[in-house]
């Protein structure tokens, strides 16, 4: 029996931030589930690396800095009609509240909040989102599990959750679904740099997680597959936590 409600076969899915971390893993896993994947990211070299990891044919790679609105418009012009979008591009800073500069806020909010909102606008305006499509935002547990120095990042993820819930309401008449994934700590370059900044290996923090580890990018990718597939067709406006049980602590 060839039964698989989680298949992405025949679907075309855009993944932003696909040059590393969670975005890369989502692109690769979606391709394994039969999707045609469109990957985008800033770093051409690393984006090419992601493309070489994709399974099957018919994938498209477009390097773009989605923090630049002109590049967003040109990206959207080149896109086919999409059955799924995963907004994954993101950055963080670690600074106590009293040291936050406007440039820190701009640095974080440009890719984490402004870029996905404007990309989504252009995707809708240019009619690149198919009926019954699924849109996924990789948010974070950060707004609900504060960690010192994480205010700007937390605020950006809280902002995108608020945006996503509204988008879900607006797109519901077209059966387009919008959901967020809120991971706790996941091992990516972003977290490794963060560990360097605060000078912790995170080994103790990891041991405090009930499942005794931080997430791997694939853990988040598998949940994305569920949200992108027809198996989740009654889900919209939701935020799904994925935490290894570490719901109250990030680190």
């Amino acid at each position, binding site marked *: 029996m060839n039964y698989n409600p989680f298949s992405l076969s025949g679907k075309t899915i855009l993944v932003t931030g696909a040059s590393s971390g969670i975005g890369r893993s989502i692109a690769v896993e979606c391709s394994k589930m039969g999707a045609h994947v469109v990957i985008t990211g800033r770093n051409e070299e690393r984006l090419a690396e992601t493309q070489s990891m994709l399974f099957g044919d018919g994938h498209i790679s477009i390097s773009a800095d989605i923090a630049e609105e002109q590049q967003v418009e040109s990206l959207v012009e080149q896109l086919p009609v999409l059955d799924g979008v995963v907004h994954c591009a993101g950055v963080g800073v*670690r*600074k*106590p509240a*009293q*040291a936050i*500069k406007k440039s820190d806020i701009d640095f974080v909010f440009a890719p984490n909040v402004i870029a996905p909102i404007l990309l989504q606008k252009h995707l809708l305006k240019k009619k690149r989102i198919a009926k019954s499509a699924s849109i996924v935002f990789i948010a974070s547990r950060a707004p609900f599990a504060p960690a*010192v*120095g994480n205010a700007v990042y937390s605020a950006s993820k809280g902002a995108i959750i608020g945006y996503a819930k509204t988008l879900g309401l607006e797109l519901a008449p077209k059966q387009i679904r919008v959901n967020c994934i809120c991971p706790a700590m996941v091992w990516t370059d972003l977290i490794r740099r963060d*560990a*360097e*900044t*605060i*000078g*912790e290996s995170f080994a103790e923090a990891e041991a405090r997680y009930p499942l005794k580890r931080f997430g791997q990018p694939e853990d988040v990718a598998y949940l994305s597959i569920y949200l992108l597939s027809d198996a989740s067709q009654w889900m919209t406006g939701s935020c799904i936590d994925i935490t290894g049980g570490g719901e109250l602590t990030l680190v």
Partner: protein
Amino acid sequence: MELNQFVENFAAQFDDTDASVFTPETKFRELDEWSSLIALSIIAMVDEEYDVVLKGDDIRSAVTIQELFERVVALK
């Protein structure tokens, strides 16, 4: 770059520890008020005042304020 000014900037990140406690020889991680939040404040202060980006390891491997100052000078 001046050591005494650095000690003063360092001390400014603390609220409860008296300024007179801070000298170049102060073993800052032994202070009661020392915390991961203050470590982040020190990193932010050094970035702002000296345009040097310290890592957590730079703070961990320094014992005294002077040693941290020397690390900042070396990275400048």
